[in-house]
């Protein structure tokens, strides 16, 4: 099978608001993994970049998130500038973006973004997708070939609906997760890096601003964007190890190190989540899906699982609250995230910033009208929005949440006497 056979469009229908003259024309060039005769069983990028199969990757990175709580969509231009302003926090071994409200025309279909490290991976994956899903569109993800990124895998996207016969009465979301895990763990060199509806992840092993140019993110629009610049210090970065991490419409960007990764991963495996991307952050995406979608915990309770109150604090709580927090710590002790972290977790309609309980990684939050910002550094926010209604540093372990529909920031986690400095 050649690339041309499956590509039914060049992505222009997704580039809203881009004048006709500025849109790409003609064929998208074949991507590097397909140019050589690299077959199955030969050296994959994964094997090259993590030769010792380390359990986790430590990173200290840049994070940024911006959301219009009125749901108005905007282009990636501003978040690209913002994350580029924190260039020195990353080292070119990972950058990525998540966009919500991205594919309104295909809002009812699961949008799978795939990385293929070799030809065989694509063939096997597409067989699997055809067997299990109705495809409304399959195409190469448009990229700008003039941007120099190294080791770019084949990048494709598919808009899918599970075949009712395949579902067998199961919830579609559970079925999708099962197939994502199957591809990531059973097909060598194929990775699903985005699997939600009306959203998408774009990422790779380069500085975030270069990844943005490569994927032409200025041409997309969404109402919620998150971004990440990576500084892996434990293993070399690779395309699949870049952030955001995703499952369904959950995305996570993370700065820090999850030293509980081993325990978290083993716990999640019991529920069918297989960690295949060799970076600690992956567990957070799966943990959120388990806690909130499957176990139906509210966001605030899920946060108390990831970053629970200290036992001595629980002892000072009123009785009913004590009972709740004891129960969460007892039932979900294996999902506690140990180690330093700041994360921005997003899903359709919601964005949340959280740090570990003793805040070993930075986070600044800010609002301006309907806009809500989260960032590793305040300067990146000021670059794209010099005048803010409020800028503040949340307390460690206390979430800052923004939701669609005007409720803006429901848990401010502000310091006791923080003045609204503008």
């Amino acid at each position: 099978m050649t690339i041309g056979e499956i590509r039914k469009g060049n992505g222009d229908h997704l580039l809203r608001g881009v004048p006709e003259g500025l849109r790409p024309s003609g064929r998208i060039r074949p991507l590097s993994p397909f140019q050589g005769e690299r077959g199955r069983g030969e050296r994959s990028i994964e094997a090259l970049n993590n030769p010792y199969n380390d359990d986790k990757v430590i990173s200290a990175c840049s994070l940024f998130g911006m959301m219009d709580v009125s749901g108005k969509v905007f282009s990636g231009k501003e978040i690209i500038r913002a994350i580029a302003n924190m260039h020195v926090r990353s080292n070119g071994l990972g950058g990525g973006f998540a966009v919500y409200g991205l594919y309104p025309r295909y809002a009812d279909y699961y949008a799978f973004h795939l990385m293929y490290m070799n030809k065989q991976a694509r063939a096997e994956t597409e067989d699997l997708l055809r067997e299990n899903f109705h495809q409304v569109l399959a195409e190469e993800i448009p990229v700008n070939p003039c941007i120099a990124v190294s080791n770019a895998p084949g990048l494709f996207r598919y808009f899918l609906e599970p075949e009712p016969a395949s579902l067998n009465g199961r919830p579609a979301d559970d079925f999708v997760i099962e197939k994502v895990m199957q591809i990531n763990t059973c097909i060598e060199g194929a990775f699903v890096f985005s699997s939600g509806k009306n959203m998408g992840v774009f990422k790779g092993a380069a500085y975030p601003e270069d990844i943005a140019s490569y994927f032409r993110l200025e041409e997309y629009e969404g109402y919620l964007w998150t971004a990440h610049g990576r500084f892996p210090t434990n293993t070399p970065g690779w395309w699949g190890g870049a952030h955001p991490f995703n499952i369904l419409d959950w995305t996570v960007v993370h700065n820090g190190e999850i030293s509980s990764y081993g325990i978290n991963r083993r716990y999640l495996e019991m529920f069918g989540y297989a960690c295949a991307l060799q970076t600690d952050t992956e567990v957070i995406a799966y943990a959120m899906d388990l806690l909130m979608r499957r176990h139906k915990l509210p966001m605030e309770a899920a946060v108390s699982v990831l970053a629970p109150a200290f036992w001595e604090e629980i002892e000072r709580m009123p009785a009913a609250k004590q009972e709740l927090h004891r129960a969460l710590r007892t039932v979900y002790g294996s999902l506690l995230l140990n180690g330093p972290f700041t994360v921005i977790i997003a899903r359709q309609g919601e964005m949340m910033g959280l740090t570990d309980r003793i805040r070993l990684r930075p986070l600044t939050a800010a609002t301006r009208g309907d806009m809500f910002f989260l960032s590793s550094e305040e300067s990146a926010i000021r670059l794209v929005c010099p005048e803010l209604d409020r800028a503040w540093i949340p307390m460690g372990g206390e979430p800052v949440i923004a939701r669609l529909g005007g409720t803006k920031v429901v848990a401010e986690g502000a310091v006791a006497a923080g003045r609204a400095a503008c």
Partner: protein
Amino acid sequence: MTAERIPMESGPVTAMDSIQIDAAGLTTQQLNDLLRRAVADGLKKIELRNVCGQRYIGTDLDQPVEIDIYGTPGNDLGSFMDGPRIRVHGNAQDGCGNTMNQGEIVVYGHAGDITGLSARGGNIFVRDYVGYRAAIHMKEYQEQKPALVIGGTAQDFLGEYMAGGTVIVLGMELKPGEKHRARFIGTGMHGGAIYLRGEVEKYQLGKEVGVKELDDNDRAALGSLVGEFARHFSYEAEGLLQGKFIKLVPLYLRPYGRLYASG
């Protein structure tokens, strides 16, 4: 890029000994090269406009120049600085005053985590609040005695492993009955003093600090630093000194001396 090759046309010279520099688009290194060049040229007042995340501003400058910063300076503002007086017309990010030796940083807003870390001299005045681990491992030696004065409040681990110097928290804008939220105050502290106005519970204090009443020497030190703070931000010093202060001091000189080895 070396300092010699940088042209100085970045901003209009407003007087013989002052200069305005537009920092928009400058890298950390370019901006600090310009600053070094300006100080070497004998300029006394430097105004930085459109600062946006450049780090180490003022690092290793050793003259008592005045630097006004408009915008948001990046991490480690004034690190290793030895003499300049910096005013930040906005908020400061993490690591403000890192290991500074002499001089002054005044922040007309809040400052991020580890404000004043390892400072060995000079004063830092923050109008609003500071993030986690302010004054961590601040130290003093003979005449060298750093101070950090905070108008609002602090987040956790204030004065962690503090080895010297003075921290003052004024608790302004705490509503009646509202307590400071900081936990683990003075954890591992083994030198210096923290003066705190506003309520804290015992459990908010680290295990290595004790609470003391202020004596006359304390009041004199407090009066002088709070007076300076009030002048910077146009407050009445008298009002800031009213209300009950407590003094937090280390209980041990070597709190962890017997943790790993006996005797």
